[in-house]
C-alpha cells in the first residue's frame, strides 16, 4: 500500500472478520494511530446491555446501534491527548449498507472526536464494502471506499 492509505489491508480484513463474527449485531472499534503503524482495537458493543437496562432511553439494540464504553473508551479518549491519537472509529451496518446514518452523524458531532468513521456493509453471507466518512461542516461525506472480501 502507499503511505497515504488510511487503513492497511490487514486491519481492514480483521474488521471484516469481526463484522462477520458479530453479525447480525453491529461490531465496533477504532484504530489507534495512523496507518501503516496503527493499532487495531476491537471493542465490545454495549448497546444490548444499555437497551436491557432502559429500553425507553436506549431504544436501539445491538442490531441497529453500537456503544463503546469501559476501558476501551478511556483508551480512546486519552489517545487524543497523546502522541498517537485515534484516527478511525469503525462499526458495521448489518443488512443495511455502508452509509453514514442520521444517528451516526448526530453521535459523531456530539462526540466531537477528530477522527474519520469507517462503516462496513455486512450481509448474511458477505462483506459487500466499507466506506470511510469525514466531517464536512454539519455532516459527513464519503472520502474513500473499500471493496468487500470473502472472510
Amino acid at each position, binding site marked *: 500500500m502507499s503511505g497515504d492509505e488510511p487503513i492497511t489491508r490487514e486491519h481492514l480484513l480483521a474488521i471484516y472478520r469481526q463484522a462477520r463474527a458479530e453479525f447480525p449485531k453491529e461490531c465496533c472499534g477504532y484504530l489507534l494511530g495512523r496507518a501503516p503503524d496503527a493499532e487495531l482495537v476491537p471493542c465490545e458493543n454495549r448497546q444490548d446491555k444499555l437497551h436491557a437496562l432502559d429500553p425507553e432511553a436506549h431504544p436501539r439494540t445491538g442490531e441497529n446501534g453500537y456503544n463503546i464504553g469501559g476501558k476501551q473508551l*478511556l483508551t480512546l479518549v486519552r489517545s487524543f491527548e497523546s502522541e498517537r491519537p485515534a484516527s478511525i472509529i469503525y462499526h458495521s451496518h448489518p443488512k443495511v449498507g455502508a452509509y453514514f446514518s442520521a444517528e451516526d452523524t448526530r453521535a459523531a458531532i456530539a462526540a466531537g472526536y477528530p477522527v474519520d468513521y469507517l462503516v462496513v456493509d455486512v450481509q448474511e453471507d458477505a462483506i459487500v464494502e466499507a466506506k470511510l466518512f469525514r466531517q464536512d461542516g454539519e455532516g459527513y461525506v464519503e472520502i474513500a471506499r473499500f471493496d468487500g472480501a470473502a472472510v
Partner: protein
Amino acid sequence: MATVVFTQNLRRHVACPPEAVDAATVAQALAIVFASNPRLRGYVLDDQGALRHHMMVFVDGEPITDRRHLSDPIAPGSELYVMQALSGG
C-alpha cells in the same frame, strides 16, 4: 487532593474545567464539583443520583463499580475521568 476531569464532549455543553477536590468517594468528589456547577449534574446523574447509563466514570483508569451510589473510594492524587460512552446507529 483528587482531580476530576470531564472530557471534551461534556465541556462542549457546559463549562467544566478539571477540578481538584478533597473527597474520599466518587459521590463526594462529584458533589463538590456539582455544588459549584449545578447544571453539570443533570448531564452526569439521573434524578435518583445514579450515574446515567450512557455516562462512564473512571478512577485511576478503572471504571467505577457502584453506578447507583457512587461509593467507590478515591485516594489523594486519584484522577477521575467523567465521559460519555461513544455510540452510533
